[in-house]
């Protein structure tokens, strides 16, 4: 069913009892041309583009939980393309462009809100670094604006401009950046993939990868063996564990990142604001809650919960930036397990096993990448050829000396 004003009125008149499920509850077939492990945003987007753009129809997505139970439903929903390195910026801008057409493409309201992302700076050195980043964006054709203190004060009056240690001197603004409704992105891609014949199989955990003569022939799952021509891993956070099933050695550590949401308030924060004095970011959801987060917890973890000390640290940073926050109550907090890669950038590549493909290492920035990741991964799987904007995101870049180290932190995942 296509969604439209007409379909809403029609369903309203029939008491909203006739809406159809958005995707079928598929049972596994014995064999697929492509199996995708992981029904998060990336796995579902990959399935969608495989079927829609590249004509690969016999595809299954296997998800151990329910759709959206992973990071796609846990993130703080920021989408932006304000990266600096040539290995990243064209990729994230490709994603931004796909976001801008996504609702029409999927006939689904993912609530993309281009409210602008502003990254604050607190020192001359940081301003220069942001000017450089803005210029790098312009060189890729992406608009960026430096907002100086006086102008910023008018735009965002409630920040703590005169903090003794981290006075706010200005910010770098990308107006096209913003947020999207994270669950809707998963559901929209799931519905789109389903309409193109993809089987989405929930509550189906991959427990082993079967190989014959060095080639992957299928996966053992909690619903039995399922054969495949090609196997694609998109298991954010659990990549090392799934990779291990095929003896892959990966440049990944699993770390946990927390997020928080406050009680609902009247509209007060118009942008996504990123605090450059530490690592804190905040926006207001359409329901009114302030959604915010900070640094990862710092040590490797597979537990989908964070520790209180990090929560406290995040709150401190938030209050440093916006003193008024101290009077707002936090409603909920939660955490997600992410792959932190050795340079903080993702990996979309083939593996040493011919029919095994890898999509991982999204660290805590992979939500914004969902459309481009799906598109590029599908391109790779269908054509056995890297999409041009993902050509820097290869698995062997560390060995070749071409790390895409946006933060300049070296091979230390907990610093990215």
């Amino acid at each position, binding site marked *: 069913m296509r969604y439209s004003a007409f379909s809403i009125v029609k369903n309203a008149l029939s008491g909203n009892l006739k809406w159809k499920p958005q995707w079928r509850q598929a049972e596994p077939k014995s064999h697929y041309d492509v199996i995708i492990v992981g029904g998060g945003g990336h796995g579902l987007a990959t399935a969608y583009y495989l079927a829609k753009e590249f004509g690969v129809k016999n595809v299954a997505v296997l998800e151990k939980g329910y759709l959206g139970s992973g990071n796609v439903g846990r993130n703080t929903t920021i989408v932006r393309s304000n990266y600096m390195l040539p290995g990243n910026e064209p990729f994230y801008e490709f994603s931004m462009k796909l976001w801008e057409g996504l609702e029409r493409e999927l006939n689904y309201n993912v609530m993309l809100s281009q409210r602008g992302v502003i990254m604050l700076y607190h020192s001359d050195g940081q301003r220069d670094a942001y000017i450089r980043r803005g210029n790098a964006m312009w060189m890729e054709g992406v608009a960026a604006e430096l907002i100086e203190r006086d102008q910023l004060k008018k735009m965002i009056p409630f920040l703590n401009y005169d903090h003794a240690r981290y006075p706010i001197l200005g910010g770098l603004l990308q107006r096209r950046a913003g947020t999207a409704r994270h669950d809707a992105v998963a559901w929209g891609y799931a519905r789109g993939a389903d309409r193109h014949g993809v089987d989405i199989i929930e509550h189906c955990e991959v427990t082993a990868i079967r190989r014959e003569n060095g080639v992957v022939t299928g996966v053992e799952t909690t619903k039995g063996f399922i054969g495949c021509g090609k196997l694609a891993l998109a298991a954010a956070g659990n990549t090392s564990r799934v990779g291990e099933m095929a003896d892959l050695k990966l440049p990944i550590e699993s770390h946990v990142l927390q997020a928080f949401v406050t009680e609902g308030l009247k509209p007060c924060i118009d942008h996504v604001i990123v605090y450059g004095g530490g690592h804190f970011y905040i926006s207001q959801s359409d329901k009114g809650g302030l959604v915010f987060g900070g640094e990862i917890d710092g040590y490797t973890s597979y537990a989908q919960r964070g520790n209180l000390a990090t929560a406290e640290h995040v709150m401190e940073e938030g209050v440093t930036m916006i003193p008024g926050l101290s009077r707002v109550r936090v409603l909920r907090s939660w955490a997600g397990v992410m792959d932190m890669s050795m340079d903080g950038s993702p990996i979309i590549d083939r593996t040493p096993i011919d029919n095994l493909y890898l999509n991982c290492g999204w660290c805590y920035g992979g939500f914004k990448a969902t459309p481009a990741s799906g598109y590029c991964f599908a391109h790779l799987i269908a054509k056995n050829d890297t999409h041009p904007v993902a050509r820097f995101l290869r698995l062997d870049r560390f060995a070749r000396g071409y790390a895409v180290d946006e933060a300049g932190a070296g*091979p230390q995942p907990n610093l990215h």
Partner: protein
Amino acid sequence: MASLITCPHCGVRPKEEFTIRGDASLVRPAPTASDETWHDYVYVRANPRGRTLEHWQHAGGCRRFLVVERDTFTHEVYSVTDGAAFARENGK
């Protein structure tokens, strides 16, 4: 995560006094080792869901490097050993 770490030198301390440096099970290769060996040492991680060894520095206390053995899923801490003692015991 356990919020307390028992430093063998300073006793029970809050985790925030410590700085985490990552995987302590890696063995630094010889300078002449192959590129592949060095690549694995610098970039590849076993990343187990379960028991793991990590370097933690007691930066807010005795400043010693420690080896903490803990579970990455339950966050239970099994042992904390002084880094030098650990290296001696493991012949590194």
